[in-house]
């Protein structure tokens, strides 16, 4: 449930964190848009981050983020609770992203215009964050990038990530370690 805590905005409702995604989806199935807004604020970083890690393009990731929530709204009725709402949401994100990828074949030129130029008001912290994200986006393999991003933004277990990406656990483990080592090395050179 780490993702519940990732969102630092929308704190006006103190009770918000008490709603689980499961409850929210049940309410969304009845057409409750407030529940959708709540689910959105709880999970948007995760959804956007995962889409970004597949698509490597901010604009596409933003589109997929919208599509994901519209799809959640349209198909919440069909959701069968298994205590894994996160997995369900991420599966939708993944399917929509892969479809977009196939339709557009946009993967080949990630860099430049897709990454905003560093904001001059960026704090030091902010520019380090950006550097790490850029390095991850431009140097990791597709699978490494997705696995590491999922760890960073969802707090899911290796096992859950393996299931989501339809890979053997051993593969996700080794890609996770290899990818992180790669990043560590590259970021060290930059320091």
């Amino acid at each position: 449930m780490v993702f519940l805590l990732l969102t630092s905005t929308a704190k006006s409702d103190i009770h918000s964190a008490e709603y689980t995604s499961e409850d929210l989806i049940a309410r969304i199935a009845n057409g409750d848009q407030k529940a959708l807004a709540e689910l959105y604020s709880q999970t948007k970083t995760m959804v956007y981050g995962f889409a970004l890690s597949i698509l490597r393009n901010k604009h596409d990731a933003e589109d997929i983020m919208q599509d994901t929530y519209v799809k959640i709204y349209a198909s919440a009725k069909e959701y069968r609770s298994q205590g894994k709402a996160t997995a369900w949401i991420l599966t939708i994100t993944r399917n929509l992203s892969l479809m977009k990828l196939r339709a557009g074949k946009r993967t080949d030129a990630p860099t430049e215009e897709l990454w905003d130029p560093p904001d001059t008001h960026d704090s030091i912290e902010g520019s380090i964050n950006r550097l790490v994200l850029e390095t991850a986006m431009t140097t990791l393999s597709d699978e490494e990038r997705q696995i590491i991003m999922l760890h960073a933004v969802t707090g899911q277990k290796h096992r859950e990530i393996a299931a989501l990406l339809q890979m053997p656990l051993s593969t996700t483990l080794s890609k996770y370690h290899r990818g992180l080592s790669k990043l560590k090395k590259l970021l060290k050179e930059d320091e």
Partner: protein
Amino acid sequence: MNRKQILTHLNKAVENDTPDTLEDILLHCEQIDCAQQKGYNMSTTITTPDTPIISDSLKRGQNQKTKRSLIKWASTAAAVLAIVFGTWFGYGHYSVDSIIDLDVNPSVELKINRAEKILSATPLNAEAEEILDGMDLKNVDLDIAVNALIGSMLKNGYVSDMKNSILISVENPNAQKSAELQQRLSSDVSNLLEANSVGGAVVSQTISEDEQLKALAEKYNISLGKAALVQLLVSQDARFQFADLAALPINDITLLLSSRQNEIEGVSMSGQASSSAYIGESKAKAIALEHAGLSESSVTFVKAKLDFDDGRMVYEVEFYTSSTEYEYELDAATGQIITYDIDKEQNNSSPAGGGNTASYIGEAKAKSIALNHAGLSESSVTFTKTKLDSDDGRVVYDVEFYSGNVEYDYEIDASSGNILKYDRETEEHSSSKSHSGGDSSSSSSSKTTTPTTSSSFIGEAKAKSIALNHAGLTESKVSRLKVKLDKDDGRSVYDVEFYSENIEYDYEIDASGGQILKADSDVDD
């Protein structure tokens, strides 16, 4: 920068980047509500989780000029409705009521009116032209036309013992009618095949008009029905490419479908697709076992199934022994081994078992090479991983351990014992809290080397107190405390989670040694 810091920076970067699109989303959801209130029935045929129901025209920032954008949204919604709810064709005698695609390899598209008379029969490829040669199906009853077409396919050898799969796709704006027609045609064709003593597989589905799919179908010269099926498979498996699967005959697609049938909704299948063009699962198993130098009785099979990879039909065979996991991919037609992967589990007692692992130096030797290089003795370090792996096509041992707060990572050639790569890193304790809060048992620098024999774990209570100590809290001050024995990276750990005020704490504690492997605190400010 250590691993945890990298993940944290990544998280923060994404969090800062995440755009706010809630208004657009809600606006769009309202359009869906309106559509449903007007009494359209959601067709059951499009409810697979992978079907795109959202058009690409959903774009950012349309909510500024509400009036104008509402009109735009209405047209977007209309486009979405066309996809979601199918297109209305109207009534009269000459208007199309349903479209039916028959695919074997020849692909024929039939359009019928409400009385189920054929309005047109269009060949979609060269084979279909041959099948349709000289037939005038106009105004013929659907049943008779289908009968004639299947008969012609049998006669021309397109349906045979080797390739016996037929795909029937029905498109009608009325979901109930689609389903009914789908069922009737499917059983008609099954009977027809049986009467001709061909045990065929009949795959049937109902489809909805979908612009994206239509474009794909046109691009690859296949029927909308086949495109829908291919799309379905592609969305199930990231390795599949539309172009590759579109080129496969329906029989291969059916074989792929049946190897994962329980995962696919909205497609029904009767009969068994013929795999006689391929070596078969048992033969595939036997080839893999022979290569591994093992007998069937000494292994446990995880799977042996027909699949499609890198443009060809393959068998994927996976099995394991007590210490080793084997993964093979064989060419389905020839039985040739395309790739294999042998993965030795951590901390197995002897290197026995796998045929060709015998030539490797062994985990113990790999460990000692790494230790030597690091100038450390086995008793002063804790191993986190020793694993046979393959990297860039060569077999290596991955050895990871730490001593104090230094992390070592080695890659050692499994045959020669040469060090290919190593990485040494001092891990700072990055969580905002230091060890100060606790009375110690938690400190990772006091390493009593614990052998990896896992019989004696420290217990949940101890794990709990280690974590609480580290956080400088007592049990009465925290809520939602959870302790769970888990496995991470192949080692047993206790997962301890709790909340205090607005901070979430998440610990991973070595189940044997009690060291804190991961300490995570997340402030919700």
